[in-house]
């Protein structure tokens, strides 16, 4: 256990956190705006990966696969929100359950369309190499993941802080009724945020597919991790999601490396404690 060990493990944890940020930030925004606990979020992640695979098989282009997959799933999310979730009105429990129903449907559909096989998304060769910094090997793909998450994070932050739309979203998160009162079209905001959440999850699926693989069951494996991010960071807070993702990524990585026997416990127990002390998460507002 020398310095190298700590550097590499930290780097690995941060890069894993970068992936989790993509999944978690969408989930967090959806919760913040609509108070919906979206249990089909893992399905968006998985479906994003599958759509990307189809694009890669037909066109051979990995670069093209990223936007196509993310946009396709965003449309899917949008349709789900409009047709099914919106008509239920404000009824969190039924909405939660509805998203589970969809998760089951998506699971079966994915099985029918893409078979039950395990696939890998192969990024371009240039990204599969490693760079050596001071004797430490850093896989380029992980650097790429960190870069992507940073870029997305900055764009999201700018959009939330500097645009009218962002202001409207923030107002809705704080108090939806009040926002409606001052003329914010919260229905449109909900639709937009739900689609954005699906977009981000699918993006995560394409990017994560390269090192997690794409296979049936991945949806419900990634879901609790995404929840950990949201819960630790605080629901509806973008900055919280970033910090939550970083913490979960590091906790997961160091837990596995240092305390393998209780590695998942070290991840979820702090999460439960945080919730018990502050039900809205570290950075969430009541």
């Amino acid at each position: 256990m020398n310095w190298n060990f700590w550097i590499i493990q930290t780097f690995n944890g941060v890069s894993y956190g970068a992936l989790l940020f993509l999944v978690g930030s969408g989930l967090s925004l959806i919760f913040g705006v609509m108070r919906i606990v979206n249990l089909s979020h893992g399905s968006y992640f998985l479906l994003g990966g599958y759509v990307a695979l189809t694009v890669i098989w037909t066109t051979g282009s990995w670069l093209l696969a990223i936007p196509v997959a993310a946009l396709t799933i965003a449309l899917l999310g949008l349709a789900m929100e409009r047709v099914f979730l919106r008509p239920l009105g404000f009824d969190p429990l039924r909405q939660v359950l509805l998203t589970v129903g969809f998760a089951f449907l998506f699971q079966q559909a994915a099985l029918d369309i893409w078979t039950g096989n395990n696939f890998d998304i192969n990024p371009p060769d240039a990204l599969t190499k490693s760079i050596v910094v001071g004797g430490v090997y850093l896989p380029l793909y992980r650097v790429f993941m960190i870069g992507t998450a940073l870029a997305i994070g900055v764009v999201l932050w700018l959009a939330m802080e500097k645009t009218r739309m962002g202001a409207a979203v923030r107002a809705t998160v704080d108090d939806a009724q009040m926002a409606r009162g001052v003329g914010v079209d919260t229905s449109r905001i909900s639709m937009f945020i739900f689609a954005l959440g699906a977009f981000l999850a699918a993006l995560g699926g394409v990017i994560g597919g390269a090192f997690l693989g794409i296979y049936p069951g991945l949806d419900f494996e990634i879901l609790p991790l995404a929840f950990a991010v949201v819960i630790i960071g605080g629901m509806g807070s973008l900055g919280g999601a970033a910090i939550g993702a970083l913490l979960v990524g590091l906790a997961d990585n160091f837990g596995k490396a240092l305390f393998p026997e209780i590695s998942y416990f070290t991840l979820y127990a702090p999460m439960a404690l945080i919730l018990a002390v502050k039900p809205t998460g570290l950075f969430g507002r009541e």
Partner: protein
Amino acid sequence: MHSESLKILLVVGALAAIAVVVPNTNSFLILLATRALAFAILVMSVDILLGYTGLPSLGQAAYLGVGAYMTAILATKYQFGLGYDFWLVVVFGILGGAALAAVFGLLAIRASGVYFLMITLALGQCVWGLAYRWNSLTGGDNGINLRERPKFGLDLSNEVTFFYVVFACFAVSLLLMYTLVRSPFGRSLAGIRERELRMKILGYNTWLHKYIAFIIAGAFGGLSGVLWAHTAGIVSPENVVLTTSVDALLMAVLGGAGTLIGGVIGSFIVFGLREYLSTIVPWWQYVLGIVYILTILYLPTGLMGIPERIRQRRASAQRRNDAKKLAPAAS
């Protein structure tokens, strides 16, 4: 309370029918029915929280896990619980579930609504994490195989005998839970579900009420786990994974929250679809997903709500008819 006694009669009749018919079917169906009954106890425990106290738990599999792992570890490491001491294991399972719930409840009860959902999810994942990775105790991914079922005068390795044992445990659980929800304590739980603030003002310690309900639900979860371990013959992290908790919650809602017996119906339907239909057609999961979605969209009160809806519809039709009849007389 005429309709109430009619309902009870119906339920008792249906259960008696199950007890008579199932053992005479083929042994695969007996196995499925045994599983559905063992799991139904867990679903009813979810209903105590969801339907009667208004707390949607997404981590109930944890208690099933405690009971199941306790049974498996005692049986394989200490050869305990394979004779008359099986009933001791049942007691341990109940206590274990209750004890875990007593700890988790301290953390979870403060929250409500979706926050309660989230924290129970997190707590459930803690238990899953231990089951999955605490290899020296739980066998990790391998799970624990129970090579034999208990023998004590009765030989539980006989599927029919075992079915009756599970059935008896189930019936007793149902009776106990029914008594509980009809008791003054159960009524104050319902009061908390409807208007917590008012109950507080009336001087009820709502936290304590919810906490006790949570522990009771955990106890029944533990019982369900003990039975489940012997039903399945193997205990693995799969039993405590998030989807198992989701299943339990969905079954309760599918049958109708706040009815107890609805959870049993939900359990039978889902096990039927998942383990029977799946052996016949490859697209069973579409059926399951669509059943859930339709129920949630169109039957917010679950399948048990159907008679009520029909009655309401009839009553309103009746009112309209009466109004029509009355109208000419008035003029």
